[in-house]
């Protein structure tokens, strides 16, 4: 139980459900009843309601349980061999002594991954620790790692190829398997060198901009956009991809980030317009414990405020946009972690006061360490 809410996790569907104590009471009573008639009798005996209403309550509970028990179907990866004739563009990337090779088939496909890693791009004759191939064939995007197909999706779902690529890159850099991770949260994580804070929020609410500001103000960026949590220690791990900044935030960051003007403009799509990718210095450690989640809300001219927020608000934002492992052990670890952390909502517009507020929070969190 989290404050006023119960959180249930359903093994079959990998669904999380947030319910209030009153709903839990009705649900427990329903599950204990031997039949609909038995349940209806319990309800009618307890409260003065018509048969129609008891039937409606019982039907709602049945439908709820049915929805929560829809089987989770893992994706099946077909056995498709790598087509090396698509290796038109070759890039090597270097991460602290580890070299990764990526082949792309076109400039358009290159834009899915390369701009966020361009700062690590080098010409190297070193043996690559892993070789990736990303290409567009017919209407599908393919991702191979060491010549094994990892994902094939419609080209319009290119963000799934990006997500899968990041997962595999993290596995390579941290020497892990996909099954070692609790999940990848849609959010950005900042560390002060002791612990970390995960920033979440809808697209356009200023997560990345805030993290770029904090990274320029003495904190380190641990992960932007995709924050992975490992089962072994429940820590968030370093994700090397640069912070992606939309044009709307350029004016906020120009005076704060050194050499911001010299960062190349990347034209990714019509809506996002021009993007810039800000590389950040790697934190000292590869992973940090995370003791708080902050729901970010950038509001022009608003005063900075950091207020406690309910687990319901946090989960409604984070779960539908994150990949969470269906492994029961990992689901339990995720819920155990949630119990231990603080949850806030941050409204801000002023860059100085927001940095002060986050510094204060880190100090407060570190006292618990």
């Amino acid at each position, binding site marked *: 139980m989290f404050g006023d809410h119960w959180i249930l996790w359903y093994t079959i569907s990998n669904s999380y459900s947030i319910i209030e104590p009153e709903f839990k009471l009705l649900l427990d009573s329903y599950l*204990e009843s031997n039949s609909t008639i038995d349940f209806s009798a319990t309800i009618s005996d307890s409260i003065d309601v018509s048969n129609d209403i008891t039937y409606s309550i019982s039907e709602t509970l049945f439908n709820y349980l049915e929805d929560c028990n829809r089987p989770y179907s893992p994706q099946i990866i077909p056995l498709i061999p790598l087509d090396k004739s698509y290796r038109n563009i070759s890039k090597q990337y270097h991460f602290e002594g580890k070299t990764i090779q990526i082949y792309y088939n076109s400039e358009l496909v290159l*834009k899915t991954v390369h701009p966020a890693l361009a700062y690590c791009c080098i010409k190297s004759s070193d043996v690559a620790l892993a070789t990736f191939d990303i290409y567009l064939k017919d209407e599908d995007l393919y991702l191979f790692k060491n010549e094994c197909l990892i994902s094939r999706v419609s080209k319009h779902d290119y*963000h799934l190829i990006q*997500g899968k690529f990041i997962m595999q890159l993290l596995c390579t850099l941290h020497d892990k398997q996909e099954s070692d991770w609790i999940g990848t949260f849609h959010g950005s994580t900042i560390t002060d060198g002791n612990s970390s804070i995960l920033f979440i929020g809808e697209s356009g609410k200023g997560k990345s901009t805030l993290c770029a500001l904090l990274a320029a103000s003495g904190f380190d960026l641990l992960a932007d956009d*995709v924050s992975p949590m490992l089962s072994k220690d429940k820590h968030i791990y370093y994700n090397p991809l640069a912070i992606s900044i939309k044009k709307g935030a350029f004016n906020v960051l120009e005076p704060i980030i050194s050499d911001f003007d010299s960062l190349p403009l990347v034209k990714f799509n*019509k*809506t996002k317009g021009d993007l810039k990718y800000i590389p950040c210095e790697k934190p000292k450690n590869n992973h940090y414990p995370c003791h708080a989640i902050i729901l970010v809300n950038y509001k022009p001219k608003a005063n900075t405020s950091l207020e406690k927020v309910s687990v319901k608000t946090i989960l409604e934002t984070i779960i539908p946009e994150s990949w969470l492992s269906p492994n029961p052990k990992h689901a339990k670890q995720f819920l155990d972690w949630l119990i231990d952390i603080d949850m806030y909502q941050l409204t801000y517009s002023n860059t100085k006061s927001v940095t002060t507020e986050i510094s204060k929070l880190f100090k407060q969190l570190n006292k618990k360490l």
Partner: protein
Amino acid sequence: MNTKFRAKAMKEDNNSDKITRKEAIQKMGKYAALTAVGTFVILNPLKAQSSSPPDAGGDPFD
């Protein structure tokens, strides 16, 4: 009727628990019970890892 879900919830039948629950439902009352039944939220995580999905109309592969 409920056997299907009961097994999944791994609940044990317990009479004293049942009486307490009945009393709790009584205490909750008609209006709270009717309101409560519509208050659940079901959240499904993504089935595969993803980066930020594209904004409407922002697909570079269009």
